[in-house]
Structures are given as C-alpha cells and as structure tokens.
C-alpha cells in the first residue's frame, strides 16, 4: 500500500473512529475495543472474500452467509462437540487444523456446486440465485437436527482451537483484563487477513487476476478471445467462498456456539456494507471498512442516548442502522468508490 492522500485519509478516519471508542466510554474502553476489533477481523476477512467475487470478478453474490456458515458447520462437526437438544456429546474428531482445512475446502466446493448451474446467470439473476441458495442452506441446517443440532445449535467445541492458544495471548489478556479466548480468535483472524491479503496481492497482479478483471468488464469479449469465462468465474467463486468459510469458522469460535440464527441474510448485508465502505475492488479497503463499521455498531448506544433519553434496545438498534445507512449514503455522494477504492475503477454501476 502506497502512502497516498487516500490511504492517509482512510487511516486517519480509522484512527479517529477508534478514538471515538475512548471518547464515548468512561470505563472498559480496552475490552470494548478488543471486542469490536475481533468482530472487525472476522467480518473484514469475509468482506475480503466478497471482494474477490464482486470487486475482482463482478459476481453479484448475496449468499455470502451460507459460505461462512458451511465452513463453520463442517469444521465444527468434524471436531469434538455437542449438538442438538440433548447435547449429544461427540468426543472424537479430527485435529482442528485438518478440520479447518476440510471446512474451507467444503465452502469452496459449495461455491462450485452453487456456481455450476448458476454462474452462467448474469448480474441480478446471480444475486437472486445466491440469496435463495443461502436461505435453502439455512433452512436445511435448521431442519437436519440430527446432524447440525438444528435450532439448538452446537456447543462445547471451542477447546479444539483454544488448546493451541499461546502463552503470550494469555499474558496479554490477563494484563488488560480481557477474555483470552476472544483475543486468540482476534489474533488468528487478523493473522489470516494478512496472509489472505498477501495471497490475493500475488493473485490479482498475475495473469489470472487480469483474466478475472476482463471477465468483470465484458464476459462476451472474453469468450470471443478464446477464454473460458465460466471456468474463470467458478474459480473466483470458489476462492471467495473458501475465504468466507474461514471467516465463518472464526465467527463460530468467537461465539463459542453455533446457532442457525448466526448465518442469516443480514450477515451477508453487513459484509456488503463493509466492502462498500472500504472500497469495492480494493484489497486493503475491507479492513478499514470493517473497523469503522464495528465502531459504529458498538458505539451507537452512546449516540442513541444523546438523541433519545432512555432509549430502549429496539430504538438503539434502529439508530444503529440509520447511522450505517447515512454513512453509506454520504459515502456514495462524496466518495462513491469507498474509502480505498479507485475512482477510475468505480465498480458499483452494475449493468
């Protein structure tokens, strides 16, 4: 990332929003900050995956929550856990990292499976199919209670990952009065962000990335030049879905339980909001978008209380999304390419 006006401004806004956390809270600022940074890391990772779909390849995917969910469910079901109403305990399972790998691959394969019939569709039609597929996934998981625990969810799986927690995480957590399990997830998700970004930087600057951008620009021209546009789109779909699967695993471990209600359409739209805030098509954009988004989500209580005296939970939730909506509207007016997006590559004018 070059130090440009754009990136300095973005970093300034991000620092300012972190500063807001300290301004709006009289006590417990550090735990609040680390809680929101954990979510920012997990959602940022998901937004990076979505950016592979939309920013790089122009695929309108509104089923991101299902990719996240599939990665999470597959991983957790492969390690020791307790699922369902009776809490059926399964004590044997694969080592965490093997299960994680299978989870990510499953999410990617789910992308392939969904993509095979759907990817020939363009623009809005793909969006409709992905959102429907995500709902089908959610309902299937809800109703397959014997496997997935249904509405009762899955618990008691955290230890598979937490047993690898390093000592310095514990030391850091206890010194700052934080929850060590969560700090470990935050550490892992931010490390994953760095690794995934390095991988993507390599891929986007390659002939493969160039081919995906060509697909984004004009699929017919790509086909006329002898390139298989469908296969390129499927590859992009699988890569983005795999990244989403990874972020879904972190989300599950951060909560410590898996609930069907986690992987709902609103999750997809949070991730979209983050990507748009950060800048569609920008590699690093989702990181900043995610931090700012989560500052708004977690600090709206204070702001809502300034507007309504004695605001209740519902009113605060309302104000929260009024603010996110306002921010996105302002952004679309004054900086339609998002914080880190290139004006020349403004990608929101979907055909």
């Amino acid at each position, binding site marked *: 990332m070059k130090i440009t006006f754009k990136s300095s401004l973005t970093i300034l806004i991000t620092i300012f929003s972190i500063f807001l956390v300290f301004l709006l809270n009289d006590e417990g600022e550090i735990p609040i900050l680390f809680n929101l940074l954990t979510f920012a890391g997990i959602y940022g990772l998901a937004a990076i995956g979505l950016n592979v779909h939309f920013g790089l390849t122009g695929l309108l995917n509104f089923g991101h929550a299902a990719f996240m969910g599939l990665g999470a469910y597959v991983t957790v079901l492969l390690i020791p856990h307790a699922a369902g109403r009776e809490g059926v305990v399964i004590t044997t399972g694969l080592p965490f990292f093997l299960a994680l790998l299978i989870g990510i691959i499953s999410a990617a394969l789910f992308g392939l499976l969904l993509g095979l019939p759907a990817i020939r569709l363009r623009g809005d039609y793909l969006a409709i199919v992905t959102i429907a597929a995500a709902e089908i996934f959610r309902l299937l998981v809800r109703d397959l209670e014997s496997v997935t625990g249904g509405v009762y969810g899955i618990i008691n799986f955290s230890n598979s990952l937490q047993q690898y927690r390093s000592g310095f995480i514990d030391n850091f957590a206890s010194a700052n009065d934080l929850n060590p399990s969560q700090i470990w997830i935050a550490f892992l998700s931010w490390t994953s962000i760095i690794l995934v970004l390095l991988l993507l930087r*390599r891929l986007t600057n*390659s*002939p493969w990335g160039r081919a995906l951008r060509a697909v984004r620009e*004009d699929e017919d021209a790509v086909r006329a030049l002898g390139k298989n546009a469908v296969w390129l789109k499927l590859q992009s779909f699988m890569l983005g879905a795999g990244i989403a699967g990874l972020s879904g695993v972190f989300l599950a471990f951060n909560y410590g339980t898996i609930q069907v209600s986690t992987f709902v359409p609103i999750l997809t739209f949070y991730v979209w909001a983050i990507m748009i805030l950060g800048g569609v098509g920008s590699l690093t954009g989702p990181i900043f978008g995610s931090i700012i988004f989560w500052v708004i989500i977690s600090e709206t209580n204070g702001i809502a209380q300034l507007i309504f005296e004695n605001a209740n939970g519902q009113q605060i939730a309302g104000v929260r999304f009024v603010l996110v909506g306002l921010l996105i509207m302002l952004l679309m007016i004054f900086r339609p390419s998002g914080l880190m997006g290139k004006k020349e590559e403004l990608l929101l004018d979907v055909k």
Partner: protein
Amino acid sequence: MSNKYLKVTNLKKSFGGLKAVDVHSLNLNTNELTSIIGPNGAGKTTFFDLISGFQDSDEGKVYLNDKNITRSQPYSIARLGMIRTFQLTKVFDRMTVLENMMFSASTVNNDSFIRSLIRLPSQKTTEKNIKEKSFEIMKDLNIDHMANSYARELSGGQKKLLELGRSIINDPDILLLDEPLAGVNPKLAEEILQIILNLSEKGISILMVEHNIEAVMKISQRVIVLAEGMVIADDTPESVRSDEKVIEAYLGSENE
C-alpha cells in the same frame, strides 16, 4: 487455392415467428475478403452469432475447416483460430489499453490459477514476450501512446482500433468483423480499411459485416447480400451492385 474454411448448411434461427437466419448453403474461401451486407434486420449479426457460437441455431450445421462446430462454445471456436469482434465495441473499460492487449495475447495456460500462484519464471518470460508483442501491435495501430490509459478513456474510433488489435494479436486464421467502421470518422475509416486490407494480404481470411457500401465494394473480393435471413445474392462486388434483387431489397420494389 479455393480452399473452404467455413461451410454452412441449412442454418436456421427464428425468434418467435420471425425468421432471423435461413441460409441454405454457404461456403467461405480461404484468403478471401468477403463482406456481408443487407438492410437492417437482415440477420447479419445473428448469422455471426451462430457461426461464432454466441447463439445456438435451431437447425443446420456449421463446419470450420471440416470440423463440426455447431453448438460449440465461443471460446473453443476462438481457439480454433476464428476470432470475432462486436458491432457495439467491447473493450475492457476499467483495464488499461496495455492490459486489454496483454489479456488477449495471453494463453489459457499462462492465465492459470496455479501458475499465477507459483509464479514460475516461465510465466515471467511469457509476460515479457506478450508485452512486447502488445506494444508492437499498438504501435502499428497508433494507440501505443495510450497504453497506460484506461480503455474507457479512448475515443470511439480508438476503441475500434483496440478491439481490432486485440483480435489479431494471436495471429488468427479467420477474422469475423462486425461493422468495423460503425461510428468512425471518415479519415479513421480509411485507416481501418487499409488495416483490414493489409491483414487480408497477410493471408487472414476475413468475413465482414458492414453498412458502408462504398467501403465494402472497394475492398471486398466477394459480397454476400442477406435479406430477411436469406442469401439473395453472392458474387463479386460488380455483379452484386447491378443485381436487381439487391436493389429491390435495399430500395423497395419499383412496381408498387
């Protein structure tokens, strides 16, 4: 000499009740510059779509160098050496002119995910070669000074040149040009015609759809006239010009 590269038999395509294309039999000869003309809605572009795989025909067969390409995918037809352009210029707007060229020059192998991940030295060499080749062609077409601009910043005529450059960079045997002169100023139209002639002289077989009759008559060796999807004339420019059916199709019947 008169080797046939494209054979079309009984090719039909309808949209609802409208017969868009109904070509009984048509052969195209290697190294020939052939043009298709016809009034609006005569089925010229649909015919292009059918032989380049962008639309499926209702009936009939298409053979490219004796290989059956009916219902083949556009990319596999392109890989056989027949490259098409589009009536509405399709450039990759938010990529630079150089990237447009390099993507077109790049092979499927070079574009592969694994190679791009591992970054073999061979890929770097290939990239260097296609970059050089891209610059050569851009220089020939006089768009090399725009190499690092986004393609959408080009003028309409420059976009036509870029599209043409993109389609010739991999030395195709056959070019299908869909209205290469549409919306281009007269001076640039002259230049593009000259480029097309040069390509033809280099041995590329060219099939061109064009509305500019003067230009067509000037450079084509053979002119095919389509009306209501059917071939109504197929001859040298001179004979076609004086063909009564052609005049009728263009100007309407004289006996009202």
